[in-house]
């Protein structure tokens, strides 16, 4: 049914997309659109915001109000939109470098506020747009153009980072597990509060080639064979999860949402009649 989704939600004139052959971003973007379709979100009430990088180009293909911002700042721009018009659904599409390196401060502070944004992080474990430098999610020891001897930087677990900072919904999906990932994105959009869905995607062009992971199909097969559902992972010893992808809903709780709390402040200050 991809064609119906394309017709309904995407800017056909701008397709095909700019991503490399074998890039997993297209699969994730389809998951996002499928989630939006399943939830019957109104186009005029939904805004997509992105930063800079391969994944952030995604918003250009979406037939919504779309804001393609500066590197790392998508969540901060989205915060302004949500504060100014809390009735809008605001969905951020971002990458691992965008969200966890240059934009890491905005990620944790938006999580701390529990502002109702849905952040979909397309994690390809590398800086693709600039040609294959290591990112904050490149596994330690892996190769990139700036770790020619293997990386010594430990990597971030983005959902764990967001949870520690106060996010009230976190999940992880993969490009391979498209149906499950769609459901996770749906749940994140429905959740009132700050939600983060890390979508592990594939970059055969840079990450795959630098680390001998094979072609796109082999990388997706690797995801199939190395992803562990969260319920199963909870019963496994830590060593068994080394180098694996734990996917599913990782964390969910309820805390007061930021713009709802601010509405109460407006009421208290007497500004509601305005």
């Amino acid at each position, binding site marked *: 049914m991809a064609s119906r989704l394309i017709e309904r939600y995407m800017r056909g004139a701008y397709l095909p997309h700019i991503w490399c052959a074998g890039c997993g971003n297209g699969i994730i973007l389809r998951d996002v659109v499928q989630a939006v379709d399943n939830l019957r979100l109104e186009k005029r009430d939904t805004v997509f915001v992105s930063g800079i990088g391969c994944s952030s180009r995604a918003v250009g293909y979406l037939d919504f*109000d779309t804001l393609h911002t500066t590197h790392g700042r998508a969540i901060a*721009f989205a*915060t302004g939109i949500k*504060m100014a018009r809390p009735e*809008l659904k605001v969905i951020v599409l971002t990458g691992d470098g965008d969200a966890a390196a240059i934009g890491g401060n*905005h990620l944790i502070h938006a999580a701390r506020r529990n502002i109702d944004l849905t952040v979909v992080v397309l994690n390809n474990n590398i800086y693709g747009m600039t040609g294959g430098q290591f990112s904050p999610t490149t596994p330690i020891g892996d190769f990139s153009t700036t770790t020619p001897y293997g990386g010594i930087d430990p990597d971030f677990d983005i959902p764990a980072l967001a949870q520690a900072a106060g996010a009230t919904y976190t999940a992880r999906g993969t490009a391979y597990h498209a149906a499950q990932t769609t459901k996770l994105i749906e749940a994140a959009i429905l959740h009132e509060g700050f939600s983060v869905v890390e979508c592990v995607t594939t970059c055969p062009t840079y990450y795959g080639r630098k680390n001998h992971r094979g072609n796109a199909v082999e990388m997706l097969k690797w995801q199939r064979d190395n992803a562990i559902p969260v319920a199963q992972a909870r019963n496994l010893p830590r060593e068994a999860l080394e180098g694996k992808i734990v996917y599913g809903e990782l964390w969910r709780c309820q805390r007061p949402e930021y713009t709802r709390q601010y509405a109460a402040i407006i009421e208290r*200050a007497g500004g509601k009649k305005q």
Partner: protein
Amino acid sequence: MAEGRRLLLHGNEAVVEGALAAGMRFFAGYPITPSTEIAERCALRLPQVGGRFIQMEDELASMAAVIGASVVGVKAMTATSGPGFSLMQENIGYAALAEIPCVIVDVQRAGPSTGMPTSPSQGDYMQARWGTHGDHPIIVISPSSAQEAYFETIRAFTLSERLRVPVILLMDETVGHLREGVELLDASEAAASDRLARDDAEQAEKPYAVLPGEYVPRLSPFGQGALYNITGLIHDDRGFPTSSKEAADRLCRRIMEKIAMNAGEIERYESRHMEDAQVCVVSFGGTARAVQAAVDAARGDGIRVGLFRPITVWPFPEAALGRICGRVRDIVVAELNGGQMKMEVERVAAGRCRVHHLGRVNGAILTPGEILAAIREVAG
């Protein structure tokens, strides 16, 4: 004019009241001396009028949030000082290229770097114009009293909304923390112009296209069904990234021309005792108060000296100053920096008169006595 309220406010407070009168309903900021009172008063006042305040994690985020709020049609402002102003520059450039209205208040402090946080300076004059990368338009306004801060903040919103350009309100600590009587207007009188929007078929197709004879696109706010793209990449009329040299040329020229073509509306300056002056003192912001006192005193001594004070400091009022350069023998530029506006004055003077500089970079202000001495020396 209906009877307004008169309050004792310092310059930073006057900025907030001006912004509220202009219809500002969103503020994002990060605490920094000597601008913090602006955030504090916004935190108190905005919810009273149904607006929203947020303290962000840094100035990068503050500027981003302001643009986000403006994209959905809410008049938005931030305030900062030197170090924070530096951090905001990238997103100010975004607002310039994507044509998102916003007002940025920079209450200057002595620098560079962390500098002297509580001391006055006018060292951000060039940064306000050239701080962000690439060729971009900007409007910069520098008031010299709390009352002027109030009115010029309203005008900053009008210019920003109508021309869809970031407007910098370049304050200095002297004005920001100076308490004076401020006449407030009724909201109905004060309301700044709103941005123009359209929602016809062409807008949906080409949101960045301008109507014949116009220079400013009439983008409708997000959330109203227009469904278009905004990007910091060079874009075509449809709002999508392009690598077309023609489209890039058209866009970059248009955003600069929209300022040039509206120069008359943007330009504002004060000219005092210039009719028969042989010496002109050029000054702006809080420093101009000391200059005016010195010029008045010098006139008392029979010295033919006048004051030229740009209020809109960018674009620089070169036509008005150019006429002066052809008439006077000497110009003294008095400013709290190492000679930033002097460079502009020299460019405009182009050798037609002598240009002297009275500057200060130590966190102290210029006094009327020092300026009077400089006038006497130049006048001979």
